[in-house]
Structure formats: structure tokens, C-alpha cells
């Protein structure tokens, strides 16, 4: 018997294709992954969107210390133009101060017959607002004459609401989370199970393996963007101003860059416990500083350059500019460059230090 000379069965990319396919199957079959990658950010958007939704009009709740002059203040408020925006309770001093401290009341008003005394907290925006609002209402109702006539129109438009700010931030954060966990954690898990070593004992090309991991991130990125943006548009009637292709491109660069940072994080660790700590350590500053839930403008000016150099800041800013303001890709080049730099540097270092066994 002669062994038939067999034709080459597998082409150059067969390993890559199978690795990617296997990776995607593993992800789909892991319910936790589905939840953390897709369910969690949607729940977060829903919860925060509802909590910070634009209420018809903000009502300021204040306390009036119950004494002989309290009724006078109440009457004045009822006569004022702003009466619909202010709710006042007449309560005893102890309750007033207690509830003021707890945040139920934004302001405590004490009338002593000669004038009014306000107790407010300058560190609480709603307290500062309440003071000037109530003061204005009471002075006007007492007959103050304004030399300048003013007028105002109310405008709460899609694009300027908290949920509009939030959705691109959540998208950026989600790309970071799934990049870091999806690559970093998965790799160390494979290393701990000696699966990486088993792979390199076969003729598998290491580049194919890394490419497949990166590609799996891109596929997930598409789904993440579609889900979060779709959710924003359908549930909160958010307006997407920028080109979808630009959003996807920035999303892809973000996903791959965070994948590379995840790769670097996982390059040496042997235990999933140690890489979990590392991943959280890397992500923590970005959760706080990169403007996911609130604008980083609130941090002191001196740290602003450092904040802007963080990859998640660059990603969030670029996504917000494109999604909310319809900015072009070209206008975001400096932010994209920051992302590429982080990703590229991480990738090069990761390859240098990577431990396959």
C-alpha cells in the first residue's frame, strides 16, 4: 500500500478562522459575558437616564421656621410669580435644621419681624439656587421694582440632556471594560489552564492567535455600539448627529487600543487573581477622571492635561464630539492619535514581555 500524497488540506488562514470562531462561540456560551458586556451598560443607561431625566420643572423645597411671622412669609411666597417653583413647609426649628442637613430642604427661612434670615449651604448647588430663587421671589412680592425688564424661554432639547452626555461615555467605558477583560482576563485564564502553552506546542501561528483575539473585539464592538446607540435613540429619543462610519471607526480604534492595553496587562501574570487586580488598577483612574458620568472639567485645571492624555478621555471626547456635535473624523485626529499611541505602545511592550507558558 502506498500513502497517497495528500493535498494540503488547510490554507494559510484556516487557523485564524477557527480561532476567531472558537472565541466567539466561547463568548456566546458564557452567560456572564453577555450580561457584563451587553446587559449591564444598558441597565446603567436606563437607570441613570431615568434618575437624571429632565423633570417638567424643578421644585425647590424650603423650610420656614414656625413662629409668629411664618404665615407672612408663606403669604408673600403665594403672591410671588415663582410660586409654582417653590414649595415651603412651616416646621419647628429642630425639624427644619435636621431635614436641611439631610437634604430634604434646600433652605431654611427664619422671619423675626424686622427681616428674614436664610440658612443655606454654599457647597450645595441646589441650596445656593434656592437662596437666590426664594430671595428674588420674596423681594419681588414685597414690591421691589426692577429697573431692567427681562424675559425667558424654556428650552430642554435632545442633545443637551444628561442622557445625551451619558450614552457616549457609557459606550467608551464599555469598550474599555470589554477590551481589558475580554483580552486581559481571557489570556491569563488560558495561561493558567496551560492552554496557551498547548497552542504554541502546535503549529498555530502566534500572530493568528492575537489577530483572532483582536478581531473578536471588533465584532463585539459593533454589537456594543449598535446596542447602546440604538437604546439611546429608541428609549430616550437621542439624536445621533455624526456619521455612523466615523463612530464605528473611532469605536474600532478604541476597542483595539484597549485590547492592546489588556494584552499588556496580561503579558506576565500567571494567575487570574493577580490580573484582575491589575485590570482594576489600570481602569480605576479612568472611571473617575475620564468623564464617563460627569464632565472632567470639574477637576482642577492643573490636572486637565493629564486627564486629557488618558485613553478613555480621548475616546469619550471623540465619541461625544462625533455623536452629539456631528464632528468630523479629521477634527478628532489628536484624540485618535492619543488612542493609537496608547494602543501601539502597549502592543509593542506586550509582545516583548508576553509569556506563552
Amino acid at each position, binding site marked *: 500500500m502506498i500513502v497517497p500524497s495528500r493535498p494540503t488540506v*488547510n490554507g494559510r488562514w484556516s487557523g485564524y478562522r477557527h480561532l476567531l470562531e472558537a472565541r466567539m462561540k466561547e463568548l456566546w*456560551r458564557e452567560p456572564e459575558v453577555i450580561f457584563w458586556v451587553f446587559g449591564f451598560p444598558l441597565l446603567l443607561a436606563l437607570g441613570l437616564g431615568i434618575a437624571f431625566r429632565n423633570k417638567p420643572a424643578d421644585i425647590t423645597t424650603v423650610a420656614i421656621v414656625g413662629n409668629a411671622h411664618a404665615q407672612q412669609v408663606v403669604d408673600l411666597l403665594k403672591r410671588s410669580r415663582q410660586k409654582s417653583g417653590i414649595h415651603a413647609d412651616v416646621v419647628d426649628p429642630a425639624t427644619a435644621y435636621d431635614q436641611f442637613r439631610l437634604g430634604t430642604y434646600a433652605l431654611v427661612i427664619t422671619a423675626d419681624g424686622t427681616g428674614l434670615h436664610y440658612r443655606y449651604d454654599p457647597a450645595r448647588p441646589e441650596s445656593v439656587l434656592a437662596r437666590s430663587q426664594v430671595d428674588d421671589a420674596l423681594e419681588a412680592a414685597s414690591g421691589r421694582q426692577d429697573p431692567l425688564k427681562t424675559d425667558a424661554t424654556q428650552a430642554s432639547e435632545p442633545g443637551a440632556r444628561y442622557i445625551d452626555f451619558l450614552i457616549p461615555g457609557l459606550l467608551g467605558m464599555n469598550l474599555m471594560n470589554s477590551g481589558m477583560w475580554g483580552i486581559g482576563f481571557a489570556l491569563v485564564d488560558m495561561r493558567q*489552564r496551560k492552554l496557551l502553552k498547548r497552542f504554541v506546542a502546535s*503549529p498555530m501561528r502566534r500572530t493568528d492567535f492575537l489577530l483572532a483575539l483582536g478581531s473578536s473585539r471588533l465584532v463585539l464592538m459593533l454589537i456594543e455600539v449598535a446596542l447602546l446607540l440604538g437604546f439611546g435613540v429608541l428609549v430616550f429619543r437621542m439624536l445621533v448627529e455624526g456619521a455612523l462610519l466615523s463612530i464605528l471607526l473611532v469605536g474600532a480604534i478604541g476597542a483595539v487600543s484597549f485590547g492592546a492595553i489588556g494584552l499588556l496587562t496580561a503579558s506576565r501574570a500567571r494567575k487570574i487573581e493577580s490580573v484582575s487586580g491589575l485590570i482594576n488598577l489600570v481602569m480605576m483612574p479612568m472611571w473617575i477622571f475620564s468623564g464617563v458620568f460627569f464632565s472632567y472639567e470639574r477637576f482642577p485645571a492643573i490636572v486637565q492635561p493629564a486627564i486629557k492624555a488618558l485613553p478613555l478621555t480621548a475616546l469619550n471626547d471623540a465619541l461625544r464630539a462625533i455623536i452629539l456635535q456631528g464632528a468630523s473624523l479629521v477634527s478628532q485626529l489628536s484624540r485618535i492619535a492619543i488612542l493609537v499611541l496608547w494602543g501601539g505602545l502597549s502592543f509593542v511592550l506586550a509582545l516583548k514581555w508576553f509569556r506563552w507558558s
Partner: protein
Amino acid sequence: MLRVRSADSVSSGSPRVFVVLTGEPAAASSSRPTDATAHTSPQSGIILFMEAAIRCRGLKKTYDGKVDAVRGLDLEIHPGECFGLLGPNGAGKTTTIEILEGLLAPTAGEIEVLGMTWHEHERELRESLGISLQETRLSEKLTVRETLELFASFYRNPSSVPAILEVLSLVEKADAMVGKLSGGQKQRLAAATALVGNPKILFLDEPTTGLDPQSRRQLWDIIRQFQQHNGTVLLTTHYMDEAERLCDRLAIIDHGEIIAEGTPAELIARLSGHHVVEFALAGGDGEGADGAWNRLPGVQSVRDEDGYFSLQVEEPHETIPALLSVVQQKRARLVHLTTRQASLEDVFVQLTGRHLRED
């Protein structure tokens, strides 16, 4: 590559084919004359090159400049044989096999696999070797079939996955998740991932550790089947029965050195005394008097393990009657007496004074 045993194995110059597990035709690589020894078959007069499947010289591995895991190993594994590295845990077996597999760099020494070096022919070698590591945990969320298809995709010319499933009796489990397999099935799958690439050499690091007897025998059958079709096998084990039954030749390793090498029969024959008489006593006086046992006819050595004696003897029929009369003199009572053929375990004990597995 041919193993010159007899005229009929030479005539298999057109090699036998095994549909599933076969490597390349065995003679094909004889065109690579590197370091080959010429052999003349007495019957046919044909000159054949016999080249080692695996050869290493002066292999050393020192971890972190301190721990000497392997201290100068020389090995030559012939094509078509099943070679075993036998030794206790921590003897350096895994380090040795992983160096030969190209997964660890040696501190010193030369290695040639199929006439090639890891440095120059890594990709080529990876295509020709099947490797099963100690305790690899494959992805639990893939099915058996998907796992094999994944590994097959790495090779240019893999075996067909259905055929491998058949050979390793995994057909019924083909669509089961790896996480749901039993220990024996997982080990068979690990062997399957090594065989799916159609290897010429199969490396198995403790393939049956922790398996039940039936699963072990199943794996042994698979290994023999691979070997019968011109495959070369290198395996490590700390089970002496496994080494005895499976291996054509073996090297006993202890503290990173080969302390004995040969066929199982040769190693046992080298023992002074091919039989072992084991007994235990109760009562009587002078229990500690080991000297009495040494003086029995035909006794080569005596071991006393907490009152459980084992004598290495030439001829049990000469020793046992003498033993019984000594027992009687001591007014002791025999609570246990057996006699058996010496095993590799005895070889190991004689060489090192320790058992292979001291758990």
C-alpha cells in the same frame, strides 16, 4: 525511517498504511542523512539509514541559576519505538520532555528531533509532532468536535476529525461540551488533539495520571495503535506498570539524571535477584534481627518497611523453606507471605532506596 528488526520489516520499505493515525511514509525521511548510521540488512543487503527520532546530548536545565532540574541527559529514541521516562514526581521528567518539545530552552545541550533542530526548523517540527501536556484544561465551552476542528486547523495536513473521534472512542461525546467530560474522556481528548495533526512523534506527559484503570487501558490501546503504524512515542510516567507494559525502552530518571536505561526486561534482569519474597510476622522474639534474613540462601538484599519485609532472591524455592524454619525458630507467626516477579518498582527501589510514589 525504518526500524531494522528482521527481513519482513525491511520489506515494508513501501510502508504500511494506517488510515487514520499514520504519519508520513516511514521511509520518506531516510533521505535526510544527517547524523545517520548506515545499517545493512543481513537478508536483503539493502543499506538503510537509521536515524534517531529524538536525540539529545548533555541536556541541562537550571532554573533561575539555582535549581538544577536536569543535569546532563543523553537520550536516543529510535523511530517506531515507545520510549518512557520513568521517575518520581520532581525528577525532571516534565522539564526534559518540554525541552525536547521545544517549549523550554535548555541551559546547555544539543537536541535533534527527526534530524532537525528547534532553532532552525521550528515550524516544520511543529507540523510533525503531536504533543499532549500534563494537565491542559481545554476550553470548557467548546464541544469535543469543535476543539478537535480547532486543533486540526493549525496543521497543513491534519487527519479527518470524524476519523479521530472514531479511533479515540469519542464519537458519542462529539457534541458534548468539554466541561462535561469525565477525566478519562478529557485525557482521550487531549491525546486526540495531539493525534489530529497526523504526527510522526507523539509526546505524552503523564497521560494517565489520575485515571481509572479502564480509562488507562483505553489510552494504552490508543498509544499502541499509533505505534503499530510507525509512530514514535515518548512518554513520561510515574506508574511502573504503565512503563513495563507500554514501553519498548525506558530511562529511569531521578534528580535530573538517568540512573538506568534499557528495555523493561533488561532493567529487571539487571537486578540481583529476579524474584521478590514479601512477608510479615507477628509475635516471636528477635524481630529486629534482619541479619537472619540476609543469611537465608539465595537472598540478595533485604528491605524492612515497618515490619513488612521484602527479600530479593534468586530462587524462591530455595529461600522459602529456609525462611519458614527461621520463623519457626523465632516462635513467630507468618501473617503474610507472597512471592512475585521483580518489577521496575524494585529496580527503582534498589537504585535509589526510595519508592517511585511516596504518597
